[in-house]
């Protein structure tokens, strides 16, 4: 542990909020409270929200605030223990067996030197403080979710050949979900929960300014206003905060004030773009 623990200064939600703001991440009060509790109680935090509202960014900013290493586990369909926790280095094991000629005892092969650490083991065995981001857990299947339960409740994992490994420092865990499926209640029970909403127009302009210091305030406000309008329409895919930032950056780079020409930065569905153009949604912004 470093001597001056940055976590020690995060004694209140407001302190968390201020610290996050220094990382150019503007959290609203509810999120600050959730993050504060996650740090204070040492419990995992489950973040849900539309795509592009900054779920993953929260974890990154939090790692910056607490001076921790960010370890990210990107979930995908079919993810299993061997891609999430550990695997054995089979080619090296085979070589070792053949090099020994007379045969090798099994214990010899399943030693730590042949162990490949995947993100979860990495997080558990880390000596420095860690923010563990389990990203898009809804993409993993139920079986993997069940496996995570064990990890999230005890912060220990079992490798059959090696035994149980306990976390040296309890990682701060952020779990994100896009809600493509409902997560299991048991998992939700073990986590603090926060739903990240789209920011208000003013806050979104502030976010753009915080993230893009070079972009004029006028552009930030204009893009925030345009995005607010787009979200109000019944689109297939509403732009997220990530798109707002990209849009502002695009406008700044083009040195152009025509929103319509750069509409493709914010909207990615052809029907949406056509509709916004034909209905004149962005007129007067």
């Amino acid at each position, binding site marked *: 542990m470093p001597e001056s623990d940055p976590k020690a200064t995060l004694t209140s939600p407001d302190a968390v909020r201020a610290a996050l703001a220094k990382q150019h991440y503007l959290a609203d009060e509810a999120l600050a409270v959730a993050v504060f509790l996650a740090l204070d109680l040492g419990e995992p935090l489950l973040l849900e929200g539309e795509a592009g509202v900054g779920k993953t960014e929260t974890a990154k900013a939090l790692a910056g605030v607490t001076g921790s290493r960010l370890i990210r586990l990107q979930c995908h369909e*079919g993810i299993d223990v061997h891609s999430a926790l550990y695997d054995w280095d089979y*080619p090296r094991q*085979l070589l070792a067996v053949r090099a020994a000629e*007379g045969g090798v005892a099994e214990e010899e092969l399943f030693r730590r030197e042949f162990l490949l650490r995947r993100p979860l083991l990495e997080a558990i065995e880390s000596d420095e403080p860690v923010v563990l981001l389990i990203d898009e857990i809804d993409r993993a299947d139920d079986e993997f979710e069940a496996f995570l339960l064990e990890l999230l409740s005890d912060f220990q994992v079992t490798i059959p050949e090696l035994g149980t490994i306990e976390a040296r420092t309890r990682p701060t865990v952020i779990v994100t979900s896009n809600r493509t*499926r409902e997560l299991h209640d048991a998992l939700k029970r073990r986590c603090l929960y926060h739903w990240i909403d789209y920011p208000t127009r003013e806050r979104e302009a502030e976010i753009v300014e915080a993230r893009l210091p070079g972009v004029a305030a006028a552009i930030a406000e204009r893009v925030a206003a345009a995005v607010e309008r787009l979200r109000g329409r*019944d*689109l297939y895919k509403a732009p997220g905060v990530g798109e707002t930032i990209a849009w502002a950056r695009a406008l700044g780079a083009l040195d152009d004030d025509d929103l319509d020409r750069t509409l493709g930065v914010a909207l990615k569905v052809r*029907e949406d773009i056509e509709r916004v153009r034909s209905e004149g949604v962005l007129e007067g912004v």
Partner: protein
Amino acid sequence: MSDAPAGRAGRETGAEGDPSPASRGEGHSRGAAATIRLAALVSELRSRGARVGTGELIAAQRALAAVDPAEPDAARLALRATLCSSRADLALFDAAFAAWAAPAGHRPEPLIDPVATAVLPRVAMPVPGEAFAPDPGAELRPAAWSEVELLRDKDFSEYSERERAIARTIMRRIAARGPRRLSRRTRASRRRSHRPDPRATLRASLRHAGEPFERRWRAPTDRPRPLVLVCDVSGSMEPYSRMLLQYAQACVAARRRCEAFALGTRLTRVTGELRGRDPDLALRRATEAVADWSGGTRIGDALGELNRVHGRRIGRGAVIVILSDGWDRGDPELLRREIARLGRCAHRLVWLNPLKASPGYEPLTRGMVAALPHVDAFLAGNSLASLEELAGLLEAGIDEGAGR
């Protein structure tokens, strides 16, 4: 569960060659008496809805011989272990056992030989003009193969209350069959594939001083593909919507990744309502949740809501089944646009239209004309047979654009 499918009864009909206890009983009068008693218990169990075959009866007889006869509880537990095959059966067994073990005077004398009752399928003998009052506690089951067979092709709109109740069991069986897809998860396999299993190969090589003689492989597994049912509950669909919602209920209960929506002037998600153990309660909840029963239909608007609000939940790989007659009061252009989008996001899009079953039907309503080019399969969905056809199609996989 209380599932007594027709196929099972049918198989037992042809079981004359079986070493059934009845036919062996000739020379062993004591054994035969015990068998008859046991058969009575089995028929008691069946009448309560448990699935017990002749094989279980024989096993029960052997189990009974193996335990201490002086220990009545041991006998009960031995019978329970052999005659029950699921957790749901346990309660049925306890009730059946209590009735069976009660003094004979308490029970009405069976009309036919209990062995015959146990071995033969029950035959439906409908009494003409019989008023049918469903007993709320009892589970209705098809009485015989022939009754099920008659029901299969009957149009849902002509169902009586009794038939509806019987159809539920069959529907449950149909609903259990659905689309599957290959998973990225693998399992160990001895058969050669393109995916080696280094872990198992290494372990096997340890037996040969590290020479990987025995190569091991992994094979992909499969898992249920998400299924989305969109059930039209508008006025024109009234004769069918109850049965189709029942089908949706059975699907939601049987499958892990299944979403159900009711479609009228607006879209209502009813997945949560349809979940739960009690199907009647589930259907009642769903009925209450839908605000616009028997109203008009605006399929385009409703599908738009499906696309936008529930797009994520549905995901990309789902099979979407729309159960509707295609009478649409909305803008056909909107319907065309939304169904095109839905078809692009879905793995396959199936449309079930009960009207398709009637001879000479042409899909000429504006809604159907707009929708059909984007539909991969177009089926009837007016009877159990057509739902069976759907299940078969879902199981086998649908070729893209097959129905166009």
